[in-house]
């Protein structure tokens, strides 16, 4: 494998051969020996459980996942199972898929949906981040029986965005046409008129980019909304095992009702699972949904 340098070889070749030998030697050292050594040390008691993936078991002893990796608690149709605490939305594959970890990667001003035009082949529809957030907030609000309306959201859970067209470029002059860009026809727009002009729904394949974009704040609350921020936003990995204590407490009554358990008992279970900031300043308070639901199954009535 190792070719010894011959002084007769020209300079560049000698350099390259020395470089290749150096790379091979270092590959054996830090590419093979080092990871194997660390793996060997990781077999020590106290480390092995973590090194293997912090696996958790159900009451009957079967492995049901990892305490560090979030899981979906939905039925085959993707609807939340009411007897379980729900995790955050996930952008990893079809949801909580460790072989396709990902965030949504959608920007803060991603507010206009794209609707498929039946005239062109291939589905081009895409929901904007704003509509996604509004839809989730509405769904969680309905599931938990609270007000899920948010700013810039229509009551139907779409982004409340108008494209306003003026008579003259600039834009100047009176408003001549207004389209609610995230409400596809035949939906009835969330406002009937804007500055005296009737608001239209969005036609499939319509291009409203030329209009002035107007965001309608609406009545919903952003801060201190009963549906907390983590319930309507996807995490960075798509595998976030945690939710905020606020989101956990919001789900107590629904879970208790679905299981026929006293709400106080479920609430106590959540309280036991709330973890504060480490050392008082590291991270955010949180509840591990995998651990909480496992404990819930042990409590019974699932």
């Amino acid at each position, binding site marked *: 494998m190792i070719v010894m340098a011959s002084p007769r070889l020209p300079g560049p070749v000698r*350099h390259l051969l020395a*470089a290749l030998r150096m790379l091979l030697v*270092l590959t054996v050292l830090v590419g093979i020996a080092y990871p194997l050594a660390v793996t060997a040390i990781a077999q020590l008691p106290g480390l092995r459980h973590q090194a*293997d993936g912090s696996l958790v078991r159900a009451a009957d002893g079967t492995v*049901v996942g990892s305490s560090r*990796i979030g899981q979906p608690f939905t039925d085959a149709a993707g609807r939340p199972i009411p007897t379980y605490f729900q995790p955050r939305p996930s952008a990893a594959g079809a949801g909580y898929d*460790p072989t396709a970890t990902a965030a949504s990667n*959608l920007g803060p001003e991603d507010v206009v949906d794209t609707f498929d035009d039946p005239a062109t082949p291939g589905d081009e529809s895409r929901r904007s981040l704003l509509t996604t957030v509004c839809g989730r907030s509405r769904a969680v609000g309905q599931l938990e029986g609270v007000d899920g309306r948010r700013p810039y959201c229509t009551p139907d859970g779409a982004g409340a965005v108008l494209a306003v067209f003026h008579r003259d470029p600039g834009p100047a002059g009176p408003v001549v046409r207004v389209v609610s860009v995230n409400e596809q026809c035949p939906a009835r727009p969330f406002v009937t008129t804007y500055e005296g002009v009737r608001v239209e729904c969005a036609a499939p394949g319509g291009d409203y980019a030329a209009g002035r974009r107007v965001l309608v704040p609406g009545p919903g609350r952003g801060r201190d909304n009963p549906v907390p921020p983590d319930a309507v936003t996807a995490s960075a990995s798509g595998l976030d095992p945690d939710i905020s204590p606020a989101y956990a407490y919001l789900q107590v009554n629904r879970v208790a009702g679905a299981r026929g358990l006293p709400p106080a008992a479920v609430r106590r279970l959540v309280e036991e699972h709330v973890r504060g900031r480490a050392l008082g300043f590291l991270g955010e308070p949180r509840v591990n949904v995998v651990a909480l639901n496992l404990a819930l199954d042990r409590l019974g009535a699932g």
Partner: protein
Amino acid sequence: MNTTTAGAVFAASLAIALGLTYRPFGDYMARVYTSKRHLRAEKMIYRLVGVDPDTDQRWSVHLRAVLAFSCVSVLFLYVLLRLQGRLPLSLGFGGMAPGQAFDTAASFVTNTNWQSYAGESTLGYLVQMAGLAVQNFTSAAVGISVAIALVRGFARNRTDRLGNFWVDLVRTVVRILLPISVIGAVVLVAGGVVQNFHDVRTVSAIAGSSQAITGGPVASQEIIKELGTNGGGFYNANSAHPFENPTVWTNWLQVYLLLAIPFALPRAFGKMVGDTRQGLAIVSAMAVLAITGIFLANGFQLAHHGTVPTAVGAATEGVETRFGVSGSATFAAATTLTSTGAVNSAHDSYTSLGGAVLLLNMMLGEIAPGGAGSGLYGMLVVAVLAVFVGGLMIGRTPEYLGKKIAAREVKFAALYILTTPVLALGVTAAAMALPGERANMLGSGAHGLSEVLYAATSAANNNGSAFAGLTVNTAWWNTVLGISMLLARLLPVVFVLGLAGSLARQRTAPASSGTLPTHRPLFVGLVTGVAFVVVALTYFPALALGPFAEGLH
């Protein structure tokens, strides 16, 4: 304690820890590069490789060794990636396609770690540990070796010798990176990072659906990913993945590790040039820029301006619950200020102004504190420019550490400074001019431009973090970014070593009453100002069209 206070304490505790290790770690590194003794293991390596560790190299020989090593590394990694399907531990994944393999090889050899692939669905364990992780060690060591050669250029007197590249490379790996990595990897395992060779294990989850639990030698790669300011994640989600960064304290440790070497190297510089106040001045300039960057990123993320963050009530899209908005913003600022590019949150979903701060951090040229080694040599080049500007102001021949900064030195410094913006803005302009590349943007309008600008800037600064909305696994992006990363790494190395050679040749002149003192706060301010003005003037138009336009509309 509320979120803002906790975030402030988080950042302050990092600053204190870095301050405490500045002296001992910097002094240790100075000893590593000035010691005459070779360890037994090192002698064995030199014998196996067939290099004489006691020859001192001229700058041109030093440069040829760096280029040869980088060239061989790119080829070796490329072949490894292409042949993956025939190697053991491949997990059933085939070889990488040629364009992507070139992009990945260039990316890891240049310490960029830009990834157009997703680890868990592309790479097996052998390629990760014996291909990518090896480059995580060596690319950091190459950067540090070049920085040390420049320091020797300042420290030495009337010589054409800058030390031995092979010795600096081996010592960096054996005496600095490897010992810290072994200890750190075990600490990470204790925190919950996985380290195994299991196949993907499919389990029946609590609610009945099936879930695939991934494995891999992650801890051993994770630690050097941060320590060597590399940033290439084992998994696609990088440091947001619970198996890479499972707890709040591993998050703290990762931010500390990626800042540790870049912030301690100025101490080694001060020690080696015989005046530790010079190192303190350099680290102060780095710290001023870094603290500003971390403060602004936190401020914009916690204030959460913008439509979707206002609707949500917080900038939590693409943020893990355990880290929170502040623990993510601090990580994001640190990873873009160094040339790391690891991410624990989705930068693409940041508020427009928060994202602009991350872009600005990279556009500073990775000098505050920058990558392992590249941060120090980048900042020293800026200091050379600052001395030159200062000399023009007071009408004296500019001098830095007793070396005259004349036409030749300024030319090298100017070429160094120009390389990165030419590549970043050139690639952005080319991508925006070509309809196909523009169509790869997930965002439209100003946000789309930000995505392209971020990608080009990240590659040209050897950072590797991404506004991941852009689809970059195309022939055009793989090729152009691969070439851009190689040029952005190797051209500056040529200029830095040229500068080092020309400085070493000079006689060190004693300081006179007309010499600009380079250890006072005035000089720190001058360096900071030059760094910022050079950046702002170069990138401001592009920033104004991208994130500023998006954030202020």
